[in-house]
């Protein structure tokens, strides 16, 4: 009985957490790509906004009828912003932190401005959930994991598997890691540090833009100002929690998503705490995702502090450090 309730609770949480944090998953993958080659892009929040608003514009103003094409347009817009960022920090060696913050704030402002007159307008061009049918119908345990739209599977399964394979099973991935850990050595063996850093920053920005596009093309089919509302920052925290490993990012994103879902699911299902009234509970629950995120990024840091430094959980050694061939 108790077990069934817990199972039911877990499944209803995970079932709504999966789509809720697909945006965090995509942005975390995007951020991780850049960070693996040594580029820290704090502008995730702005990139989500840019990706989202251009998808909205594509659908509402340009008459795009395919959600895939709308998402591609959002990704391309974010990629352009990512290219500007990459040129600033890689070619001109500007501070990654400052340019990243500028991108975060500027991207939010730009997307809010472009979104004027589009606020709240329903978007009809949406990703539709995949219905595998057959045995999966009416099966609570499985339906939490299936019956999502295709982007969810790309974000949680496709991208992490590809990224894991590339990073840990190919020469290309070894070179990527070299660019992030020891760019001088990579340079010495003929890898173009500048080129790789720019390429992966742009690709990462495009993926984060896909996260923003997903928000307006599936999760909440409408534009609203400040659309990212902290999800970009959470994505950066998820990368740290994951120790720059794609598989762990899935766990981090789902942990955050579960906490977000707990806020509304607990209230809707009447789950309470004995010492807290229903109204107070709502405030407590809306705080929880950020507290859990904070605790989650302390775990790897704590492991380091305790001397259990696992190589793969440490940040790329050259993260956020501009590379100059003359200064090596």
């Amino acid at each position, binding site marked *: 009985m108790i077990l069934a309730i817990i199972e039911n609770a877990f499944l209803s949480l995970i079932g709504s957490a999966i789509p809720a944090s697909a945006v965090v998953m995509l942005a975390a993958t995007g951020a991780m790509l850049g960070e693996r080659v040594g580029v820290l892009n704090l502008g995730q929040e702005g990139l989500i906004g840019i990706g989202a608003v251009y998808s909205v514009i594509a659908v509402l103003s340009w008459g795009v009828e395919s959600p895939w094409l709308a998402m591609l347009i959002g990704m391309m817009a974010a990629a352009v912003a990512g290219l500007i960022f990459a040129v600033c920090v890689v070619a001109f060696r500007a501070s990654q932190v400052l340019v990243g913050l500028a991108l975060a704030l500027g991207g*939010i402002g730009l997307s809010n401005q472009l979104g004027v007159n*589009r606020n*709240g307008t*329903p978007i009809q061009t949406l990703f539709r959930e995949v219905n595998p049918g057959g045995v999966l119908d009416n099966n609570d345990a499985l339906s939490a994991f299936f019956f999502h739209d295709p982007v969810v599977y790309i974000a949680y399964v496709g991208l992490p598997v590809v990224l894991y394979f590339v990073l840990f099973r190919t020469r290309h991935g070894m070179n990527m890691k070299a660019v992030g850990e020891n760019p001088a050595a990579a340079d010495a063996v003929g890898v173009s540090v500048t080129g790789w850093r720019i390429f992966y920053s742009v690709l990462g920005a495009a993926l984060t833009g896909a996260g923003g596009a997903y928000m307006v093309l599936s*999760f909440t089919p*409408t534009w609203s100002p400040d659309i990212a509302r902290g999800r970009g920052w959470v994505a950066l925290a998820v990368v740290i929690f994951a120790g720059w490993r794609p598989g762990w990012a899935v766990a981090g994103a789902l942990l955050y998503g579960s906490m977000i879902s707990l806020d*509304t699911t607990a209230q*809707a299902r009447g789950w309470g705490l004995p010492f807290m009234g*229903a109204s107070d509970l709502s405030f407590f629950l809306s705080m929880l995702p950020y507290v859990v995120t904070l605790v989650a990024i302390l775990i790897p840091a704590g492991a380091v502090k305790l001397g259990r430094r696992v190589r793969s959980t440490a940040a790329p050694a050259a993260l956020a450090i501009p590379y100059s061939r003359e200064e090596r």
Partner: protein
Amino acid sequence: MGAVGIGGLAIGGSVLAACGDDEEDASGAKESIKAAWVYIGPPDDNGWTQEHDRGRLAAQAALGDRLETSFVPNIEFDAGTTETFQQLVDDGNDIIFANTEYAGLLTEVSDNAPDTKFCEINGHYYSDNLFPFYLAHETTAYQLGVAAGHLTENGRIGYIGAFPTATAFNDVNGLLLGARSVNPDATVETVLVSTFFDPQKAAQAANALLDAGVGFLFGVMDEPTFLQLSEEAGVWTGYWNLDFRSAAPTKYVSHFDLSEFGPFYTEQCQRVLDGTWVSQDEVWLLDTPIGDFGPNVPQDVQDAVLDVGAQLDSGELHVYEGPLNDNEGNQRLAAGETLDSLQAYAIDWPVEGVSGISPV
């Protein structure tokens, strides 16, 4: 994030109006005035702020060259808000309207600007130059509750609220008591999301309530995301702010009609022009009729709702009539006791049958 919101100031109305600005005769009457609106959201939100902006434009149209209006959108609750109000005072506005309760962020300015008049929606502060106004919406919620009672088989109503304030209590209480007048087993399940405008949060709350099995979904959100989700789930729904059947073409029930903002704003501006504006010592409540019905609401349900509306208007029927308990089992109204709209404006408890929100 408020600081990076759009801070643009849109100026409407006639430029000519600026000429005769401060000419004042002995009676305090003015040739022309400036009025400003401070908005919590964007004026194109298809919801709350849009209705206020329609009210602004109605006042503008009614008073023509004698009124110059402007608005500042997306003003959230932070230190920048006080600066915004101060700027509007310094710009020489004669009257300033706020479309959410900014409380101390506003009164810090209004207390030091005795020559400027202020009207704050849903406010709780009274001074010589500031008074609150709001909507008598518990009766509208009651009528929507009657509709929900007729339309749903299980009598389960979902409500997406923002904060545990009188607005939420009057919504859930009206819905529940209206629904119970039809179906004694009706319940209201509440999810509070601590914001009026965050479509992502509203979507999650809507999904959680729809998954839980509610038969009618309502909310105080400033945008219509939850209507779309209701439509997809095949669940009846309604809206606070305006007619938004396009978001839920087949499952739309009705909305709160907020078209009294225009006449209210016009009257306040007219009073400033005439030199007869005075502050009030109780909240100025606007009539909030129920709006037009969606196409699939059966005629007998529409008739029942309008009949209840007429009874509420005539005083024959009261939303709050004892005996009534709050949802923690304490009796709040004895048999025969009633609350009028002014008393309902201060209510701080949900009635028995409402879950997810507790007495303050």
